[in-house]
């Protein structure tokens, strides 16, 4: 392809006439005059925000749409450690039932108002009451007291080890109280962040433009004159945007990495989801077979994780048997190898459970899953005698279907939060949204209670114990943790954000 390139171009130019001439100089061949002054960061996002109201916001990929406008109370640095932002200091009460925040003084919203304790209280109250997607993150917060203009106290009904970390995300976005009741609260966000939304250069579903907040209190966080985020759902289209210089960053999948490298795109990796089966019905309500621990263990042994990791995740990741990631305090390294591929053992376990002749397991699948996964799982479970009956679900309904209690098990991919409690709260506690059948055993109850009763250091050990219990009892059948690729163009540099599939806005900088 190298030699005739010039000829192609000449031909094409001749053939396609003048209209191209005016638009030929793309972003790629124009060196930025002064990167820090007028640099533009263009990101191709895989998601599109439903609303720019913080109360309606979500974690993960969505943060890139909110971080430019809103400061969080606490900032998660790229390691996932907490750093001061609007709050300069935070203290957890001894019994874990209160969190006191000391606020930075002199910070102003872009509408001119001050960031005060009242404003923070207003935001927290509103976030909890609005019933947004993450309202549960403040579930433990009973009330918020304004102690003085620079201090707020969050009173908790029960200890919540994940709360400070949560305040580094959506529940910690602070918007101007003047905007609370504005009709445009969803579309014209007003915060104290490093950038402001330029509504005139914004088209929902196609482009969101943020311009530099000239008066921002921390100049170090403002590295671009403008940030443009384009929601592009199709990975190929995102990749084309980055390859052709129309975008500087994008979230990707393992299967594109090789092509990206050969196209000269920089590939960054961050520890990502754990993938595998979630054995939702460990209580055996829907599928009595799954109620038996031997069966769940057999499923863990039956899957050739290495083969799937190699083929589907292209080897970018590490096999595991636990749902907690290395950066969380619940992580127990040895549990990664708790279940290794062993067909005979799986068969033996099934026999032990009285299911020597196997059984049928109905699971949902959708086009969002890698096409190789469903057949591979079916094939491998068939080898131990379990027949998988895949039911095709339209991709948008896939996750709701999993949570609807229709299926005893499902293929899932979950993030591995830095704070272990977040994972517990999402998957293990009795009313956790992903504990679909509200499974609970005396052991889990005790361990969870112990975790909440312990201080930070002791909690780690208890969480590890809970982890071990979940692995031993095979509540899940994790296969591996993937490395999540993120592609950037030559125009920017980035530091990946631990615990988040895409880097935070603060992590980007113009290339020198």
């Amino acid at each position, binding site marked *: 392809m190298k030699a005739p390139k010039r000829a192609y171009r000449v031909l094409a130019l001749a053939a396609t006439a003048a209209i191209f001439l005016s638009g030929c100089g793309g972003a790629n061949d124009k060196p930025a005059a002064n990167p820090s002054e007028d640099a533009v960061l263009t990101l191709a996002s895989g998601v599109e925000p439903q609303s720019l109201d913080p109360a309606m916001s979500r974690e993960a990929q969505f943060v890139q749409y909110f971080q430019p406008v809103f400061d969080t109370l606490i900032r998660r640095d790229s390691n996932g450690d907490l750093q001061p932002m609007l709050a300069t200091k935070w203290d957890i009460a001894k019994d874990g039932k209160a969190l006191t925040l000391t606020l930075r003084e002199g910070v102003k919203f872009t509408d001119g108002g001050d960031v005060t304790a009242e404003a923070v209280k207003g935001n927290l109250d509103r976030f909890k009451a609005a019933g947004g997607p993450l309202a549960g993150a403040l579930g433990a917060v009973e009330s918020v007291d304004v102690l003085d203009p620079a201090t707020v106290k969050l009173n908790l009904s029960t200890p919540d080890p994940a709360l400070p970390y949560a305040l580094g995300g959506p529940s910690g976005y602070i918007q101007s109280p003047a905007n609370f009741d504005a009709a445009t609260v969803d579309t014209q966000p007003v915060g104290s962040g490093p950038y402001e939304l330029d509504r005139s250069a914004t088209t929902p579903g196609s482009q969101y433009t943020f311009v530099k907040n000239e008066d921002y209190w921390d100049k170090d966080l403002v590295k671009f004159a403008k940030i443009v985020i384009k929601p592009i759902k199709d990975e190929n289209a995102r990749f084309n945007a980055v390859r052709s210089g129309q975008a500087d960053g994008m979230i990707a999948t393992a299967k594109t990495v090789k092509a990206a490298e050969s196209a000269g795109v920089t590939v960054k990796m961050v520890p990502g989801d754990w993938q595998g089966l979630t054995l939702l019905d460990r209580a055996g309500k829907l599928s009595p077979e799954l109620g038996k621990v031997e069966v769940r263990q057999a499923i863990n042994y039956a899957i050739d994780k290495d083969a799937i990791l190699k083929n589907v995740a292209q080897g970018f990741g590490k096999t595991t048997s636990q749902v907690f990631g290395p950066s969380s305090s619940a992580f127990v390294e040895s549990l990664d190898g708790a279940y290794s591929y062993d067909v005979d053992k799986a068969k033996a376990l099934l026999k032990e459970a009285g299911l020597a002749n196997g059984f049928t397991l109905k699971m949902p699948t959708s*086009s969002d899953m890698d096409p190789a996964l469903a*057949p*591979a799982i079916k094939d491998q479970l068939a080898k131990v005698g379990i027949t998988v009956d895949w039911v095709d679900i339209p991709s948008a309904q896939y996750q709701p279907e999993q949570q609807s209690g229709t299926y005893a098990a499902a293929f899932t991919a979950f993030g591995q939060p830095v704070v272990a409690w977040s994972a517990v709260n999402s998957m293990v506690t009795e009313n956790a949204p992903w504990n679909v059948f509200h499974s609970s055993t005396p052991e889990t109850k005790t361990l969870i209670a112990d975790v909440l009763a312990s201080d930070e250091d002791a909690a780690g050990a208890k969480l590890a114990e809970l982890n071990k219990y979940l692995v031993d009892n095979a509540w899940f059948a994790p296969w591996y943790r993937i490395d999540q690729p993120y592609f950037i163009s030559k125009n920017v540099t980035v530091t990946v954000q631990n615990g988040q599939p895409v880097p935070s806005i603060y992590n980007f900088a113009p290339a020198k």
Partner: protein
Amino acid sequence: MTQALEPATAAPKSASAQRQGLGSRIASSPMAAISLGVLAFIVLAVILAPLLTRFDPSVSDIGQALLGPSPEHWLGTDSAGRDVFSRIVYGGRITLGGAALALIVAMAIGVTTGLFAGYFGGALDSSVDWVSNLLIALPNIMILLAVRAAWGSNVWLSMTVFGVLMAPGFHRLVRAIVSGVRNELYVDAARVSGLSLTRILGRHVLVAIRAPIIIYAALAGVVVIGVQSGLDFLGLGDVTVPSWGTMLNEALVNLYIAPGLMLWPGIALGVVNAALIIFGNSLRDALEDRPRVRRRSTSSAKQSAKKNDAVTPAAPEPAAFAGGQSPVPGFDEVPDGSVLAVRGLRVGYPSADGIKDVVNGVSLGVRRGEILGLVGESGSGKTQTAWAILGLLPSGGRVTGGTIEIAGQSLPGLSKGAMRSMLGKKVAYIPQEPMSNLDPSFKIGFQLVEPLRKQLGLSAKDAKAKALAMLDRVGIADPQRTFDSYPHQISGGMAQRVLIAGAVACDPDVLIADEPTTALDVTVQAEVLDLLRELQKEKDMAVVMVTHNFGVVADLCDRVAVMKLGQIVEQNTVEVLFANPQHPYTRMLLEAGLEDKTPRTRLLRPVDEPLQEAAL
């Protein structure tokens, strides 16, 4: 997916074009036969999938993923380690089966409603039409996705729904043909024969729409396959069943690590699409491009038989008297001073066995102020001779021999531009059927003014004045009104006057009139003949009057030439020829006339009759 289908594309011009069995038509077109063969082969392979493949299309071995072709896996394996060949073969069951289902549903609905709506018309027609407008206006993709969201992923369900959405295409196609067929005389004949409605619809109407439906279905098949595999490709289908679309979807996911996966499902889709399109197109061409016997509207049927020779000759009516008699001496005489002189003219058309001559050495000449009648039955080549003189033979036809001279200018070999400048000014043409010879889309005035400006270089104003004067001259009572009318707003007699005005407007030396009164009522005919006679005198033109009517010849012509099977058999002045016909054919023609015959007696000797016409 973005292909729209229009019934008219697939429909032949008329149901009466179907004068040949469907099977033989397919067989007669090699492209159609080959593409049908390819389709049949693929369908057979897909049906026999279990015999052809050694692997279950959905059994995977992830350890064997993305292998290249091997004796075991002929086309390699996919990203889950499934055998690509068996997935292609089994996938065809879903893709082609789904398409077939959609087509069957669309046909079942569309053909039924089209049949009844087209046959009965009225309120039934308009209500079905409204529903079909609704279905066309509904965005197909959204409906399919909504159905999928409502009732789950199921290729058979969604293809059934898609069939319903496609039904309007068949409905419109069938409705249009049936409402045409309904007025065909053979349907009337069937009704008069006492056939029941179901029998008429089944035996007479359905037969006429069979070929167009098949053509349309072939092209609609391409659309269905496109939509179905497109949806699967986008991940909007059922991923648990193998189809060519889901294979493409898998290929897209693995685009950068195994681009080859695109290949086989792509080829399968391409081959089927190409076969369908080529089948449809060549079947349609077989319908359209055959030598066509023109369809006549009921009102113009009078001249229909004569029109046969206006077309690439079909089997000519067998002459009542077997040929063989040599032409009467003087048959090829070209009078001195002829302003139009044709010598040894031959006109040929390509046929299966090379060029076939339909005009076979015709010589004739006309002097200024003289009217020559060119008489003959259908297939005699008289119209072909007229067109050859004008240089306006239909596509395929050409002068294969002889010379034509008009006003000293030798025509064959003349450049197109030079010929064009002769037309209208040196030689002009009055056609047979007035209505079909005026462009229905333009006002009459425009059609008169346009050539005046072009040929005489008149200004718009002068051309209009001249056109109005001409209309007045040909006896049109209100020239301005006619000038501003569209052709369908005036009567046939008036239209013929307009055409005569157009022909003589540039004062041509020679006027070729091809059966100018055949389509007219007899009273109008008399008036038009009077007009022609006057104009000819006034402008001192040489006129060739092509006709089959000896009465017209007797009324108008000075001399007459009798044509038979592409040759002139006798030529003389009218007085001599009518009084003393020499050639047996001329005699037979005159004898067949009804003048001076005793009513209710036989016209011909019965003995030789069955023999001749039996010679098919």
